[in-house]
């Protein structure tokens, strides 16, 4: 299904650019000793993770392993019990305006798309730039149309979300997040709710974004995408990070039994 991807390494220019931008030598996103419970359930156990600018990190693992929860803690859609999360070297604010501003820097794409049902496609994309960044409407419109064209749904601009297919909705959701010019994009199982024939169109947009140098954290079950696009793969199970490495290391030479077991189950069918 994923054969039509060009297998190309993250291009040199992007890597150099990210090194130059990373002034303090600090990772863009950093999780230190993050712990979280849902009641008695210990969902995140001492999570340590860092993502550099321009890096594409793919998080894989069985359901219930805490990977979505981890992804959601990064813009504080889930709170954490202990540890700290740093974005661009800054601690994640607890509440209020600081948190809102930080969230604006972190784009998020959800499994269920979550396009605003009472707004048209173009309004969905324009809303945050106008309301949060106080961009003037004309500029926001041009930006939104440009982004919709980049994800290939500009002809649907005046429709309502419910009139679009799942794949189209998810591409609009990506455009909506990009409209805030985020420093990092979080993808929480972006293709899991899609019909199989629509998975590719979304993965293509994500691949293009990765090649343009966007810093991305993707929770996904698309192993083909992970292998082709990721710089680094993280394997989670039972709330812990069990392995982290390059895609080749992880997929060809998994170290833990848990990872071997997981890979044997998904790669043999």
């Amino acid at each position, binding site marked *: 299904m994923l054969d039509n991807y060009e297998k190309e390494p993250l291009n040199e220019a992007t890597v150099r650019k990210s090194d130059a931008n990373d002034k303090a030598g600090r990772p863009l996103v950093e999780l230190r000793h993050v712990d979280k419970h849902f009641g008695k359930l210990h969902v995140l156990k001492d999570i340590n993770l860092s993502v550099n600018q321009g890096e594409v990190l793919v998080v894989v693992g069985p359901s219930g392993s805490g990977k979505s929860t981890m992804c959601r803690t990064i813009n504080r859609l889930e709170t954490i019990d202990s540890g700290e999360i740093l974005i661009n070297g800054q601690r994640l604010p607890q509440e209020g305006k600081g948190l*809102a501003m930080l*969230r604006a820097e*972190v784009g998020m794409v959800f499994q269920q798309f*979550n396009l605003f*049902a*009472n707004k048209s496609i173009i309004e969905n994309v324009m809303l945050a730039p106008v*309301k*949060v960044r106080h961009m003037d409407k004309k500029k926001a419109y041009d930006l939104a149309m440009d982004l919709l064209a980049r994800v290939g749904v500009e002809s649907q601009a005046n429709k309502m979300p419910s*009139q679009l297919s799942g794949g189209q909705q998810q591409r609009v959701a990506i455009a909506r997040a990009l409209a*805030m010019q985020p420093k990092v994009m979080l993808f929480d199982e972006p293709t899991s709710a899609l019909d199989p024939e629509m998975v590719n169109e979304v993965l293509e947009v994500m691949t293009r974004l990765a090649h343009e140098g966007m810093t991305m954290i993707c929770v996904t079950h698309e192993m083909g995408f992970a292998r082709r696009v990721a710089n680094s793969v993280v394997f989670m199970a039972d709330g812990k990070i069990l392995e982290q490495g390059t895609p080749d290391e992880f997929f060809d030479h998994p170290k833990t039994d848990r990872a071997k077991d997981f890979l044997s189950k998904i790669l043999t069918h």
Partner: protein
Amino acid sequence: MSEFLQLMGEYDVLGAFLVNIELTAWSALFSLLLGVLLLMMRISPVSSLRGLSRVYVEFFKNMPLTIIMVFMVLGAFAQLKLTFSDTFAKNFFWLAVTGLSLYTAAFVCESLRSGINTVPLGQAEASRALGLSFMQSASQIILPQAFRGSVAPLGNTFIALLKNSTVAAAASVATETSSLMSTMIEYHANSILLIFAIFAFGYVILIIPIGILTTMLSNKLAVRR
């Protein structure tokens, strides 16, 4: 028939209905404003505001309207000197509107809250993730969808309000329908069934269109997902 014409000629029945419609219209407006405020408090991130709204709604939901109306006259007006106008009728009219609004706001808040429950959590998460503030996400995303999802319960609340407006008699609004009905029965005891029928049909004629409108709007405005 002549009996009917005689009654209608002798008493200003239409005028009385108009008083109830006015009571209802003003109370609908104020209870809607207060109800939205209560709802915003109820869903706000500030726990003391949530608590306050909850206490308000529970209090007024469980309080008989007659007690509120009598309190407006004997408590708010006579004791606490809450006065809207020097004109007797005007003063009691607005006291009644205040009582009805305070009472109905609790039900408006509950109706809207049922509408909030039709808005998936993901809508709020998406707006937060984009950096929208609580007020922005409430006014742009959550409330518009909640309104559209609560047209039917809101319609029912306002139908109840129109009927409840007859309790304004307890707040000394002497010109409204139930007061007029009592007066008419007092002087025309032999036409008692006809008098009941006049007022009963009057309300049916007023309320049926509201019901039809509600159903139409509810279908038309429903949020497609």
